[in-house]
């Protein structure tokens, strides 16, 4: 298995939005979901996860409420808001365009320049 990679600057917010877009999650759930869909190839600093969640909530992209976890404990669940959904879409498009451009640059050969 590959060594997990550290996250690129500024991508954590997008990943959180994506994770909660698939269904309401508590903080630990966000962590697990990102690891699961990245097949353990991405590593999130647990300490930076919560400030990011609070920031996203303050900005109105996600919203939270207290609920019951799988193991019958009180946990705070985060859900994507309508504004968050739009934000995720634009962020994803921006990321894809950026990735294409970067990939294009990196693929270029001496002949093309």
């Amino acid at each position, binding site marked *: 298995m590959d060594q997990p990679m550290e996250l690129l600057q500024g991508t954590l917010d997008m990943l959180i939005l994506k994770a909660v877009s698939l269904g309401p999650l508590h903080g630990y759930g966000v962590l697990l979901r990102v690891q699961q869909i990245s097949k353990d190839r991405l590593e999130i600093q*647990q*300490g930076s996860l*919560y*400030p990011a969640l*609070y920031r996203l909530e*303050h*900005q109105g992209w996600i919203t939270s409420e207290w609920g019951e976890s799988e193991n019958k404990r*009180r946990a705070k669940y985060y859900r994507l808001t309508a504004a968050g959904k739009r934000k995720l879409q634009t962020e994803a498009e921006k990321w894809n365009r950026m990735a294409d451009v970067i990939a294009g640059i990196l693929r270029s050969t001496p002949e093309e320049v």
Partner: protein
Amino acid sequence: MTLWSRFRSWLRAAMGRSRMEREMDAELRFHIEAFAEDLARSGVPREEALRRARIEFGGIERAKEKCREARGLSLVESIVQDLRFGLRMLRKNPGFTAVAVITLALGIGANTAVFTVVNGVLLRAMPFPEAERLFLVSLTPGGGPFEWQPGVSDRDYLAFREQDQAFEQVACFTKGSTANLTGAGDPAQIPVAYVTTEFFSALRTNPEIGRGFLTGEGEPGNDSVVVLSNELWKDRFAADSEILGKTIRIDGLSRTVIGIMPPGFEFPGAKVWMPLAIRINEHNSFTRPVVGRLKPGVSPQQAQAELETFAEHQPLGPGESKKDRMAQIIPLKDLLVANIRPSLLMFAGAVAFVLLIACANVANLFLARAAGRGQEMAVRSTLGASHWRLVRQLLAESTLVSLIGGAAGILLAHWGVQALTALAPAGKVPRMEMVRIDGWVLAFTLGLSVVTGVVFGLVPAFQATGYGARRSLGQAARTVIGGHEGIRSVLTVSEMGLALILLTGAGLMLKSFLRLRAVNPGFSPHSVMTMTLDLPESTYTSASQIRTFHRRTLEELSRLPAVLASGAVNWIPLGQGLVMGTFQVEGGQRPRGFMVDKPCVSPSYFRAMGMPLLRGREFTESDNATAPGVAIVSQSVARTLWPGQDPLGKRISMEDEPKPEDWLTVVGVVDDVKQQGLAKNSEPAIYQPYLQVASTGFLSHMTFVVRTGSPPERVAAGMRAVLRNVDKNQPIAIASMDSLVATTTAEPQFQTRLLATFALVALALTIVGIYGVLAYAVAQRTREIGVRMALGAQSADVLQMFLRKALVLITMGITLGGAGAFALTRVLMKFLFEVKPTDVPTFATVALTLVLSSLAACYVPARRAMKADPMVALRYE
């Protein structure tokens, strides 16, 4: 970020820091425990799993701190921070803070005091259940010779009561009557009200003890019942719990007490209520106030429409014309406050000006300080503080100052209200008992303080931060000055304008008051004492009985030591009432609409009052019932009826169709007197000797006047003894004529004093303001002055430079203020006596006063500039 989420986030933060902290703890604990459980499931021992989970998570405290930051500083927290910082800044400049706080305390305190009175007198509800549903029904137009009283004639009242659909109940009552209460302590004249039996239930206030009036009470033979006010019951009857069923004597008649009203109930200003049955009398049609309670769901507009229809169809009474009727549905409170409202609103307007001036002054102070803080603002904005945050910081400071000023203002208002109630003319301001600093007043002051803080803080705040952010750090401190000076000049000019308006108003009122005081009433009021009596019909049934009483009293009064002359008149000038009417002229025609006062007087009345006899003779004791009828006319009667002829020997009659013995021969002429008030016209009068008047109605009310050689108050005891000697059952009302005159000028005097006080405060603030602006300009331009002087300018040039600047400001202020005064003083029209609201001498005097005092204020800083040493000035900074 949506506004809503921002708001929710703030709201949550505002709900309590601790709850958020608890939630954050719970959330992080859940994370670590869930993580540890997962580890435990993969075989790690439980203790070890928890430990590993913590380590993996990293610094929990640091994460929490970042979470707090991410959530943003809550509004409440940052406001607390702003206030704390503001407080620190204010403490650092105690002089500045003190001046600002005192200025605002003056402005806010004066406004709070006036509002307390306005609130109590005009705004607070009448103390009845659902008082807002109570209205007066009125068909009388205003503009008569007396203060306007809403009312309905008895005839119209009976018809209206039959037809009316809008009111649950309508009740008719009298206002301003008095009666003699005897047999309960000293005899006393007390205010009473005669009310129809629906009165108490229309007000939905029943006696606390006993009962109200029953239907049919008030009819003759059935009307000897009475309801007492709680206060009278306590003062005069020692709160006798057995009083129901007992009889008391009012105007000499026995009446059975049937009820005691709850404490505080005294509408319409009475201590005793007696039943009234409305009957139509051939000769008299009374017009009295009528109160009604609207049915649920009926609006005042509907009632108004109903009353208008009624007025349209109700046949007119004898001698009545359509324009004698004006249908009006008026809030009940207006019965008491309609006449005082204009002057209270005038005070409220004037005092608002004082606050505006105070605001301008403090704004100037803040601007001056903002210039000094340009550097601080520049640093903070460079370090990342947002523009809005800096504005908020400065607004927090200004609001803090105004809140402290407001708190001090409440204290000032507490004394102010006491002073106002003490100075207010006795009996002229109704509902004074409602005046107190209550929750509404406190809310008003709080609101006013916050608004004030924002108003005077906004401009300096935007100025300071705007420049602070734009200028580079080094320049900030110096370059802001020019811009500020413009705004400060605008503030000063408007301040002067406002002050000029107030001063002009006060000047006009003062001139009017002095004119009023200088009015010759037609008699000489000094060294005269008066004693007024209302002899009750029940004891004094015939004219001869009353005359005997009068003659005995006059005899005894004239024997008192130091009495020069004593006389009697039934309606004293400047007193409570008068008899006015028509008459017939022998062989001539009375001009249309010419009516005269008809006083009955004793022989030596004119001497006692100091009214000079212009022609003929005075009345004597021999002008009695058996002698031929005589009369003395006032000058204007003689001039009007017999221009260019000798009035002596002419004959007139008070009867509409005089029989031979009804003719009165004119034997003398006296001056006209001011009967109704100094501000009113002198009135024509025809005097009759009281010994020749037969109607008890003209004799039972009598005022005895005594002219003395010693201070008039000294004979009061003697007068009292005389009355007790003649009839110990009569209440005593003794007053000096000077004080009666003063009563009639008490209201304008109060208005003048109050307006003058406001105007002087405004003037003082303005002078401080203009001084401040100029002193600041001089201080800021010290360097420039130094350069100019080094280049050869004379100190006179410098003085001229600053005085020119001051003159520009003053001229603009005077021009604007003069225009404003010209537009606004017309609201004073109805308060002014023989002075036009645009009185040129007053305008000129006031403007000159303001110019001179402003120039004096400017001279000090300008002189300082002149004396500046170029070397010192150049080294400045």
